[in-house]
């Protein structure tokens, strides 16, 4: 296949690898390549670009850069694989840090350490099969509950909701959940109560709601007293005093997806008045 080199001139100009710093919080598309900060000087506009710098070039500043979801290492650059806004988190020590793409995905892919809400689909011998919305059900041992022993089995029925954490989650293995932390404590995890409402939102909304600087939760908390559980797999369980209040809360949270901060402020102030 002959490659039309000339045609691409304009295109490449607009699509040449950009510096990751320059596109922070901007929309990136799959296929784009990003330069890391220490590469910018070498390969900037007009730069010679003769010195290929490795991610872990020992001689120079040894910075660790972590590729989050939606990014992959491609030679000495970052390749974007998902569409969304590019985010960055500075590490404590300065330099490098974590880069990831914030997308509005619906399908969950298990990640080790994530807290999720699962639905028990089957009991087989010593383990429960739990649907977490991924490509295969997660397994959950009956011993992975606080205070559970071989004699003292937890009371879990098919159809129950489980709030747990992944201890094994990689692409090649069946994911495994537990409902205890490393000290053997429940720490909030376990079977979720029989009342309340479960509903699904996008994974991006969950991340937004759980962000430390997010005002939504505080605002929601001011409306009614409530119990709420967020699963990183896009599931939210909410319970208020009455059915009516639960429904209102669920609808507000769902609606937050496509509202800007100002619009949310208006809604909450309107609700607080009524």
């Amino acid at each position, binding site marked *: *296949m*002959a*490659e*039309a080199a000339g*045609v*691409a001139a*304009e*295109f490449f100009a607009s*699509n040449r690898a950009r510096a990751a710093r320059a596109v922070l919080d901007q*929309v990136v*598309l*799959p*296929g784009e*390549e990003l330069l890391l900060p220490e590469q910018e000087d070498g390969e900037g506009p007009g730069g010679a670009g003769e010195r290929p710098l490795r991610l872990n070039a020992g001689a120079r500043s040894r910075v660790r850069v972590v590729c989050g979801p*939606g990014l*992959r290492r491609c030679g000495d650059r970052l*390749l974007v*694989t*998902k*569409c*969304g*806004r590019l985010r960055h988190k500075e590490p404590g020590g300065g330099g490098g840090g974590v880069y990831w793409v*914030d*997308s*509005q*995905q*619906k*399908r969950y*892919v298990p990640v080790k350490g994530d807290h999720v809400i699962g639905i028990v689909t089957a009991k087989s011998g010593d383990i429960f099969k739990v649907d977490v919305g*991924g*490509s*295969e059900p997660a397994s959950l041992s009956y011993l992975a509950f606080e205070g559970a022993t071989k004699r003292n089995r937890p009371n879990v029925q098919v159809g129950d909701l489980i709030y747990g954490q992944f201890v094994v989650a990689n*692409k*090649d293995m069946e994911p495994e959940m537990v409902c205890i932390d490393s000290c053997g404590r429940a720490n909030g995890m376990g079977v979720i109560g029989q009342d309340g409402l479960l509903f699904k939102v996008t994974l*991006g909304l969950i991340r*937004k709601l759980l962000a430390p600087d997010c005002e939504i939760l505080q605002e929601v908390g001011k409306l009614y007293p409530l119990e709420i559980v967020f699963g990183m797999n896009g599931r939210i369980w909410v319970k208020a005093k009455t059915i009516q209040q639960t429904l209102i809360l669920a609808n507000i949270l769902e609606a937050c997806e*496509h*509202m*800007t901060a100002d619009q949310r402020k208006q809604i909450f102030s309107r609700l607080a008045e009524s």
Partner: protein
Amino acid sequence: MEGAMQNEAKIRAESKTESGPRGPGCSLRHFACEQNLLSRPDGSASFLQGDTSVLAGVYGPAEVKVSKEIFNKATLEVILRPKTGLPGVAEKSRERLIRNTCEAVVLGALHPRTSITVVLQVVSDAGSLLACCLNAACMALVDAGVPMRALFCGVTCALDSGGTLMLDPTAKQEKEARAVLTFALDSVERKLLMSTTKGLYSDAELQQCLAAAQTASQHVFRFYRESLQRRYSKS
């Protein structure tokens, strides 16, 4: 097969003096795209090119049947549904072309033992259907957040009896054309991912069509970018 095609093209070139493709009159019809319009699939997109319209839904990475499981990569399936009647050979052939294109850009190795299913529904066919299917599939895959090494787009060119090149032809233009060529191009290097052709053309004409498709792909990718930027404008 390739040899035969080349031969054919050669004969054509010798027997006929070429009239060049005209500059003006080559245009893409109006485009429209809506993402995430279906609630059930993991990603969905409706893509319109003029009066041609295709709806796409994507599931994945989801559970896979044991019989279709591949241990080191995701199983990619494409289902194309015609608007009237049952799917036939034409649909199967298109499904294959689209599947091969998607396979080239989707990073299936990241999700082994899962399935990625693309369901396409023809909503109205007014020419350049395959190109529209490809565009809809790409936007739906992006919406679903399936990891990809690049975006792709489809461009259809038609050559009429006078050798005039038309981009994004309508059904009428396709019917009257001497040759109809559809290309799938990737967004990074704009290399060819897939091509399918019908009719007679010379090798020079093939290159002309390809060059025109590459120019057109620039507009399609710009359209992709703008619509995705709009989509994420509130987050």
